């Protein structure tokens, strides 16, 4: 942010992927702009800037949320999880491995948003049907894959999590 933009800068505290940040943001910034251009977390993608595509999906207190239409102030005091926070220190989330294994990421630009929606689904539903997966992903546009391999990935990850085995092992069995 440069001094000559002269916006009304507010100092806010934001919790992203478990880290607490004290940052200055222009009062009109969205959460997405803050993540990408203040915190440098570019994993959440900017597709349409008005809630039409789902590429910017993050979890807000665990719920899939479009960060491009969320004023950053609305995220104060809440837990923001982005794609950068999906893996834990021990390794990738089962969904990430599963998506690699099924080939569910093509150009990859919608992928972070899709993974966040899918992760939220698996948090509340450990064995979703394909209809439930479709419903959960119906707010994430993908122009490349035709979605099929994404469904397969969610199913594989769900099974891996249920069986507490790596997705690669589940796939082999």
């Amino acid at each position, binding site marked *: 942010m440069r001094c000559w*933009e002269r916006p009304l800068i507010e100092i806010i505290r934001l919790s992203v992927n478990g880290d607490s940040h004290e940052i200055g943001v222009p009062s009109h910034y969205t959460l997405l702009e803050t993540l990408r251009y203040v915190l440098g977390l*570019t*994993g959440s993608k900017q597709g349409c800037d008005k809630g*039409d595509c789902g590429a910017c999906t993050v979890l807000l207190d665990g719920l899939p949320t479009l960060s491009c239409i969320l004023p950053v102030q609305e995220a104060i005091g809440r837990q923001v999880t982005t794609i950068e926070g*999906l893996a834990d220190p021990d390794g990738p989330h089962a969904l990430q491995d599963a998506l690699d294994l099924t080939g569910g990421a093509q*150009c*990859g630009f919608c992928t972070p948003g899709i993974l966040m929606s899918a992760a939220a689904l698996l948090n509340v539903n450990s064995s979703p049907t394909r209809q439930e997966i479709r419903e959960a992903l119906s707010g994430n546009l993908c122009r490349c894959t*035709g979605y099929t391999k994404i469904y397969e990935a969610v199913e594989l990850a769900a099974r891996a999590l249920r069986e507490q085995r790596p997705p690669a092992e589940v796939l082999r069995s």
Partner: protein
Amino acid sequence: MKYYLEWPEPDPTNLPPPAQDIEPWGETRVVGKPLPRVDAYERVSGTALYTLDMALPDMLHGAILRCPHAHARVTRLDTGRAQAMPGVRAVITAATPGAAIPWYFRGQGPTSMLFDEHCRYAGDEVAAVAAETPHQAILAARAIDVEYEVLPFVQDDAVALTPEAPAIHEGGNILGQETSGRGDVEAGFAGADVVLEQTYHTPCEIHTPMETFVTIARWDGNRLTVWDSNQGVFGIQANLARALRLPLTSVRVICNYMGGGFGSKLGLSKYTVIAALLARTTARPVKIALTREESFICVGNRAANTIKLKAGVKRDGTLTALDAVFLGSGGAYPAGATSTYLVQALYLCPNVRVEDNEVYTNAGPSRAFRAPGMPNCAWALEQMMDALATEIDMDPVEFRLKNIATFLQINDTPYTSIGLRECLSDGAKAFGWSEARARPRGRGHVRRGVGMAAGMWAYPGDPRATVIVKLFADGSVNLNMGASDIGTGTKTVMAMVVAEELGVPLDRIQIEHADTGTTQNAPSSGGSQTVLVSAPAVRAAAIEVKRQLLELAAAQLERPVEQLVFQDGEIMPADAPDQAVALADLRGLRGRQVIVGVGRRHPHPEGKIALPFAAQFAEVEVNILTGEVRVLRLVAAHDSGRVMNKLTYENQVFGGMAMGIGLGLTEERILDSRQTGKVVNANWHDYKIPTAKDVPIDQTCVPIDPHDTECNTTGAKGLGEPAHIPTAAAIANAVYHATGVRVTDAPITRGRMLSALAERRGE
């Protein structure tokens, strides 16, 4: 009309013969396996850096002022107010020194200027701004005062053909009228038992890839570096160098991760040149990212087509004549609108006439869009084939099987292989075609039906790729290739080719690609040519590395090269495997530290052409009370030659079909043609690309591999385009089967379905 993938249009006839004699592969050990992408983790972890994610120190942001009128002349332009806005560092217009740049479409002479005072569609570039923030740039662009002389405009293709229509270019609006064909169509119709005639219409579709159109330009002295989301860095480089009058060596174009293109990012766009000009003016890097709305307006589309098709057939299923009149508009510039190819080539037919009309209209210029012109042509031809089959009471699959062309009838060239028969028969089997067709269609308000369509793709590729493979002292490899990976899996497939030849595991292959400064010339990733052009070059480079390694091993083992074999990353005498030497233990390699192999793609086989074929099958459900059409399942059988990687192969097929569902059911650009001429649905809410709930749960991919040993040294033919060509037509045929109603205008929206049903009821 012909689409050009890029300029300068390369000359595939002027390639030297192959440097090595490379045998076709037999069984492969790595190639063909369903291996995850080599960059899979980057793609799923958010660490893959797209051009849109990049920022350079001290970077400015650009915005473009576009003409708000469908047809106008700029009569006065005042940048004073904009210049004075906060954060503004430069405002450029047609009058800016260096900005008088002629603009080319389709390789022909210039048809306009970078900033043209004659604005031919609502979206033409008028001026541009660089400012400290994107917001300031947009506000300043809006503050440029422009007076326009508003001119009458025309957007209806048929009206544009008339002499009264306002002229969009000097010389009128008719861009091309060509008639071609063979035989005698009148005689063909006279000899037919059944003759049908129908007019079909397909909509203008927008590519709208997920990553918007974005470029970052930076000058170092006279040298320009551009990070740009595109499908082929060398085409962008060549055009950019021409626009800026720079030698190729002074323009470096880089594109690593990119978020989709589908043809819209094949060519150079004005925003890239504008970013370069703004960066030069301000002596700072400049980023221009088009808004999502701009992505719908000014960076290409699939032209709407009107296709009048007349066909004759004998009762035994022999096609006797095809006569088609095409009308389309690539918009305000010569950008390509139609393809008559399928009518001329897909089925054996002695008498064919095609008339192709392309006109200018005051609308955004088209660009090659996944199989340009072909799904539109399939929409007409494949519905006509279905109607003919019904008329002669023959199964549509059987009817097509009877009319397979065994050579390319356009120029009497034999195919290197043709798997269309297997696509039709194996696809039908996988789908359960006969059983599904015989099932009751339902008596209530929800009817079921099945349909199918076939297709082929027309472009054998531009075989000009040069690739370098470097093997390092520890046996790990660097693959250096110019090809782009636009999401299709290019990097992965090419690394698998290296692994196949050199026995190096994928995780020991590092890839540099799509950078004109550090990689070698390769054609753009478009026209389904990337694998079939670059993979043979990669293979040649790896084999050259292997040749050099064998020489080093021969010296070390004191054996002639002919006695050595290369296996699993080791070299050994064929008769003494115990003397195997690991690559890292080759003394000659340790001395040099690197082996460099250069590989070139061989020319196309002489006198033959390699093209892919397809047949797709759809089952749909139609609610005749509400007009809702639901695709229940899809089966795609494709002869694209060898399957290089089953995962990326299937993904291309499923993705191509999803786009076909868009064409068949939901996608359509709508212009405010009678009032302002602007696009009314320039966003993802009003322009409806399929969601997860529009794509069937049940999708199957049936690869057909005819083991083509002539097409190239990998046996792979193209896949991206053919995957998209038949889908919409197959859905339309299924809708007909379910309801008895033929919807000839795409997409089959709820409204069109209801109107067609009402028309049949005589309402």
